[in-house]
Structures are given as C-alpha cells and as structure tokens.
C-alpha cells in the first residue's frame, strides 16, 4: 500500500525541457489517470516513476522515501506496457514466474501464486502457451497477470488498451476497474482516451506540453474545467465555444451577449471580469436545448445519428458552428432552420487568457 509524491519533477532531453516541474500527490489505493494529447509527456512521466528514465530534477517519493536513484525492481512497482512486452520465448507460466524467480520466491509459493492469478484472469487454460499463440486480449491479460503476481505497491499502465478493438477495450476497462477495486493497489494509468480517463479514474491529471493543466475528479474536470484547454479536452463531442462580450455584472452572475444580440446570464463570480470585456462562452453539446422559443437561431448543416443520440451540426448566422446533442428520435433534417437555447447554469466563461471564471455554485457531484 503506497502513497506516491512528485515534487517538482523535471525531465530534460538534449537541453530541451520535456517535463516542466510536475508536483502531484497520489494517495494510497487511488486510481490516477494521466491524460493529454500526444507528445505531452505522459509516458515520460510514468517512465520516470517506474525508474526506466532518469529524473533530471525534483524528488520522487514512495511512502515518504526518496526513490530517485533506486532501480526499478526495488521501487516495488509493476508496469504494463502498451506493446505488452511479454517474453516471446517463454510460455505464459514462465512469463509470470520470471519476476518471482528473480525475487527468490520458493518454487511452491510461485506455483500457488501464478495458479491463483491465472484463475482470476481466466488464463489457466493457456499457461503452457507462448505469447505468439494468444490473442491480443489474452496477451494483455498475461501482461497484467505478470504485474499482479509480484504484489506491487503501485501499478503503472501505459496505454494498455490502445492495441485492442473497441469491444474488447470496453470489456477490459470494466475488468481493470473491478480488479482495482479488489486489489486496492495504487494505480497510475496513462491514456489519451478520455473515455477511459472519465470511467476509471478517481483522479485525472490533465497534461499539456509537460505542464499539469488541472488535477481533479472526472466530474470536477467536466463541470469545472480550469481553463480552455481542459474544457476542450474533457468531454466528447467537445465543448462549443462562442466569442461574447460582458454586458452587465450582477451578484447573481455575469450577463454576456454575442454580436447579434442574444444575451445570457451565466452564474459565475462577478468579481473576475470587467464590463465590455471580450470573453469566450463554452457550452457542451448536451447542454444546448432545441426550443421553438429559443433565442439562438441557426441552420442544421449535418445530422449524425448514433442510435441513442443524435448530433446536430448547426451554424449560426455568423457561421459559428455549434454541435448540439439531442435524443435519437429527433427528426432533424439538413438545411432546416432551428432555434436553440443554451442552459445558462451549465455554461462556462473564459477570460482572454483562457482561464475559467469561477462558478457561483459547485456541481453536487464534483468533489
């Protein structure tokens, strides 16, 4: 059982700083997900925690002890690689046994342990198979099994599901979440798939260019993104953005308006904006309502039917594109005019620097 602390962790490659000072507390038993666009440094950060990459600056603490200079196996971690990285010349049993053997565990105990883990992962029938004879999902299970048998204090995952097809990915997501609930081991999980991040994480860490943009629970990031980057990154389809100007500032919120008129009272703290300031209004597709009385007028340009849902791509008079989510039965047709209403309570305002204005009330599920 372990607590992992990052204190101003930095990584420099050829004089270029890739990780620019990351500080983070990962609590015992917590499932933490690192997300961010490709190249933002997620893997580098994870590999530094694992000990596969040297730490250029800062302190890495596991259970209060500085482990910067400890070799990987001594840190009490286990890692599951994106490419599985199984030993192709060893069968499933030997793959799982390798680490235990090196740790000097007696034969009988090893056998017991591997049999147990193989049973939970439904691998018992494949113990004699070589990795090359297994399907992608089974290989992934072996990789997970190899990590579990060692009873690590912390599990590290680097995009473990990205080589699987969509159906299997969904299934493995559930299995991993169940496994985490059962093993209760601290887990650090890297992905660029925000669905994985939202569904599995206790805490999401959003990274961009080696900097932490925001840390919070999935719903905190969804309802209270700290800046434009997080707002755009979390949620699918992504949030819509409209340029607006401040019209009036009252205790119950800030009233903003678009060029053409319609105004909207957004419940944010009044102290963070000035009158006539240019702001960006953010609203998620699921927070736009189709309303015959609505004051936003647009034209449907595309209809995407997902079965349970329909996504309408609507352009406004000034050619701004809005994606609107509605139910699957909506009979929207291309080139028809449509009237919309934005749910003011679920709208976000961002200042010129892209920082969100603080909402008056916290969402009840956003811890």
């Amino acid at each position, binding site marked *: 059982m372990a607590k992992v602390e990052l204190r101003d962790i930095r990584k420099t490659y050829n004089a270029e700083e890739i990780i620019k000072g990351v500080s983070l507390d990962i609590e015992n038993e917590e499932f933490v997900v690192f997300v961010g666009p490709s190249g933002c440094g997620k893997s580098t950060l994870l590999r530094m925690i694992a000990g596969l990459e040297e730490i250029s600056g800062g302190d890495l603490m596991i259970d209060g002890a500085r482990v910067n200079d400890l070799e990987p196996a001594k840190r009490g971690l286990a890692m599951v690689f994106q490419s599985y990285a199984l030993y192709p*010349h060893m069968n499933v049993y030997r793959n799982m046994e390798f680490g235990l053997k090196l740790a000097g565990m007696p034969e009988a105990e090893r056998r017991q342990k591997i049999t147990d883990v193989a049973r939970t992962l439904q691998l018992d029938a494949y113990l004699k198979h070589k990795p090359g004879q297994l399907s992608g999902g089974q290989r992934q299970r072996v990789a997970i099994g190899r990590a579990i048998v060692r009873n690590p204090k912390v599990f590290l995952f680097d995009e473990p599901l990205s080589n699987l097809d969509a159906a299997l990915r969904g299934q493995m997501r559930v299995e991993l979440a169940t496994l985490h609930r059962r093993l209760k081991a601290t887990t650090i999980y890297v992905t660029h798939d925000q669905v994985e991040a939202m569904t599995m994480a206790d805490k999401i860490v959003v990274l961009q260019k080696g900097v932490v943009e925001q840390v919070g629970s999935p719903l905190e990031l969804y309802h209270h993104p700290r800046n434009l980057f997080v707002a755009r990154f979390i949620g699918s389809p992504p949030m819509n953005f409209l340029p607006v100007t401040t019209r009036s500032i009252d205790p119950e919120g800030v009233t903003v308006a678009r060029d053409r008129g319609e105004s909207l009272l957004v419940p944010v703290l009044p102290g963070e904006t000035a009158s006539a300031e240019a702001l960006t209004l953010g609203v998620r597709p699921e927070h736009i309502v189709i309303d015959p009385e609505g004051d936003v007028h647009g034209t449907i340009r595309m209809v995407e039917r997902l079965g349970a849902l329909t996504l309408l791509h609507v352009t406004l008079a000034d050619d701004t594109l809005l994606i609107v989510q509605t139910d699957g039965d909506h009979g929207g047709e291309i080139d028809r005019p449509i009237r919309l209403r934005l749910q003011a309570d679920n709208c976000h305002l961002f200042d010129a620097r892209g920082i969100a204005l603080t909402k008056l009330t916290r969402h009840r599920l956003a811890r």
Partner: protein
Amino acid sequence: MLTNLPIIVWMLYTFFKEVPVPILEAGRMDGANRWQEISVVLLPLALPGIASTALLSLILCWNEAFWSLNLTSSNAAPLASFIASFSSPEGLFFAKLSAASTLAVAPILVFGWFSQKQLVRGLTFGAVK
C-alpha cells in the same frame, strides 16, 4: 576469412537492434540485473539472428577453405573452379566431379538442415510483428 567480419558484425548488429526495447525494460522492471537482462532476455531473442549469422559465416568460410588450402601451391583455385576443373577439354570426369561436389556441399547441407528452423526465423525476424 577475416573479410567476413564486417558482414557478421553488421548482421549481428541488425539482429540485436531488432529486439524490442520494452521487452528488455520489462525484464528490468521484473528485477533482472544487467547480466540477467542479457542472458535470459536479450540472447534468446537474438538467437535466430546469431544462428543465421553463424551459418552464413560457415558457408563463406567453407567456400574459401579450398582456396586457402591451395594458396601456397601452384594450382590455387577456389572451390567452384576446382569442381569445374573436372569438366575440361580432356573429357568430363563425371565421377570425380560428383564426388568433389558432394564433399563440398555435404557440411553445409548437414549444418543447414539442423539450423533451418532458426535460419528461416532469422531471415524473417522483424519482417512481421
């Protein structure tokens, strides 16, 4: 024989480079020290490459062997022309030609037979995932 060295170094280098780095890293995460990483993970994975390099080197050496053996005498001839010499204007010495060919081919055939699995794997190693 020394002329084979560059090609052997080059081939071995390629085969060792083909071994996926994450597998070696997995070994390190599992607690393997540098020596175990090399002996238990790296070498077995590069074995097909080592085998095919060895076979190639053997073939090259064997072909040169006669040439080297005869280098000091007046009739220095590589294996191929030594065999060809049995088909001459004086007549086709079929028996001798066959015998020489068999002798020349046999060791490679035997060695190749035993290493064919490794060789084929070696030559296609890395071609597919």
